[in-house]
């Protein structure tokens, strides 16, 4: 019947792995690639800080004779009030800011997702109980909550990390829950039940991948918030303890000299902004790359 009809060229069946096609889609988004590059540079800086700068000699040791030196060939970002090299402090500061930021999000995303997924998927009483608890947490401002937790646990980088993570959990629980609610009513979920998929499999294989978009965006945004929260806690003296270099605390230490030596505030500020920006770009890019519907 259709002897003349089929002029379709049959392409070769090539099996592209999921990861390869995600990368392919990601590469098409130039801004996302730029974001990834910036972020890799920052990570590189944090990982290889020892090779880039001298921790004991430049980042920690005070040298009052060298204080407030403007950026020059020797000190490309200048020196601060105690004569420490700002470049070295920024490089080592990346370690704290990035690692705390990312680990915090990993932790709160995992815990928040489990809670949100359970609430969204099972609904009813489970949903009510879990979400009311989360509401209590949400009712307290995030930073205030972190302060309370640190006050209870005591200071220290690790304890700060825990405080910040707990403060972020309710947000993720809410977002994961609503994302799951929007997917769970769809017929392909019912189909999965019809062939006997377990609840965990349905959540992991069918619901989460389809609810990913808003979660990823929120996660990257939250890394930014977390870095800012570390800054604030350090500023209050309950975060990173001096003399450990950290971008936020560097800014707060120098804020009194903003008028005379603006570079002391702007340089760490620019690094915070770069981190936040690159993460947002990566987040947007990932959201699109993970969605096969946006292939073109």
């Amino acid at each position, binding site marked *: *019947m*259709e002897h*003349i*009809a*089929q*002029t379709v060229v049959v392409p070769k069946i090539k099996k592209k792995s999921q990861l390869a096609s995600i990368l392919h889609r990601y590469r098409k988004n130039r801004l996302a690639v730029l974001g990834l590059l910036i972020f890799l540079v920052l990570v590189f800086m944090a990982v290889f800080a020892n090779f880039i700068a001298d921790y004991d000699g430049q980042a920690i040791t005070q040298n009052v004779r060298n204080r407030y030196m403007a950026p020059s060939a020797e000190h490309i970002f200048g020196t601060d009030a105690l004569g420490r090299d700002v470049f070295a402090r920024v490089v080592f500061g990346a370690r704290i800011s990035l690692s705390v930021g990312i680990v915090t999000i990993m932790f709160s995303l995992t815990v928040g997702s489990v809670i949100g997924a359970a609430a969204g998927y099972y609904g009813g009483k489970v949903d009510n109980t879990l979400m009311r608890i989360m509401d209590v947490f949400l009712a307290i401002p995030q930073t205030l909550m972190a302060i309370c937790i640190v006050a209870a646990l005591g200071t220290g980088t690790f304890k700060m990390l825990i405080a910040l993570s707990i403060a972020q959990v309710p947000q993720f629980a809410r977002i994961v829950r609503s994302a799951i609610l929007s997917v769970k009513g769809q017929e392909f979920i019912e189909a999965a039940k019809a062939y006997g998929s377990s609840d965990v499999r349905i959540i992991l294989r069918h619901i989460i991948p389809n609810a990913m978009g808003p979660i990823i965006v929120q996660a990257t945004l939250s890394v930014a918030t977390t870095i800012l929260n570390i800054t604030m806690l350090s500023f209050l003296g309950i975060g990173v303890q001096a003399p450990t270099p950290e971008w936020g605390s560097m800014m707060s230490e120098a804020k009194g000299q903003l008028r005379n030596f603006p570079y002391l505030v702007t340089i760490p500020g620019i690094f915070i902004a770069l981190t936040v920006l690159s993460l947002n770009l990566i987040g947007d890019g990932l959201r699109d790359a993970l969605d096969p519907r946006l292939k*073109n």
Partner: protein
Amino acid sequence: MSSVTERLLEIQNLDVIYKTDEETVYAVNDLSLSVYKGETLGLVGETGAGKTTLALSIMKLLPERTGRILKGAIHLQEFPVTAMSEADMRALRGEMVSMIFQDPMTSLNPIHPIGMQIAEMLLLHKKQLSKAQIEERVDQILTLVGISPDRKGDFPHQFSGGMKQRVVIAIALACEPQLLLADEPTTALDVTIQAQVLQMMKRLKDDLGTSMILITHDLGVVARTCDRVAIMYAGEIVEMGRVEDLFQGDYHHPYTTALFGSIPNLTKKTKRLQAIEGLMPDPTNLPAGCKFHPRCPRCMEICQKEAPGAADRKGHQVRCHLYAEAAKD
């Protein structure tokens, strides 16, 4: 009959495209069509045939950023729709020509009572009417579509689907337009409700003398309500004629024949349906020659190269090479 009655709408050689950065969709291609006073024209076709695009072109409501009328002219009586400004067009919409959309659930504003939504139409177009006159007209039009005027203070959510569609029709008819474009008005309704609405629309047409273009994919609805029928495929009218021409005889476009063959027949017992093989052509990359040729069981060599013209037999047009000879008679 075409020579006697007055022409209300005339479309000549219309081309409409949707253009985005990546692609161009050829939605309506070289389409000519007339609607006469008082008649109902059925516009039949599958998804993507360009039916709705055609209606939106007549209303000049194509999506601003992408939709564009490339060439051709639309005349609504003496008004040259294609050449008119948006401001002039706004005055025409509702008063000369109205449109009913498929989904009654989303065509009504949920936060206003339905009486107010009908009154709004009158306020816009009949500025000379007093408040009392408008109220009176609202009552009148509601009665016409079979809703008690007591309910004009009710909100859309208090009505069922069929009742909502009646309200939508009431709004469209409030200013007694000359032409009503009904885009699948009963597709979202249950059969018994569809029967009610169709019956009402037929009665209204007889009472008010409104002309109508009824867009549908249901040939059963066409048989019940239309005077003339146009079958659309890939943005073209492949066959057009009186409803008797379309449903009888064997002077038909192969697509029309196939369309009838693919509907399960209630009156006859058939073992297998005659499905049309293949898919609708990609509107961004239409086939050369006749657009139906890749699916056509009677495809000839010429069909792949040359687009057929419309062969006319006493007002019954078929766009197919099979009848090219007949056209010369």
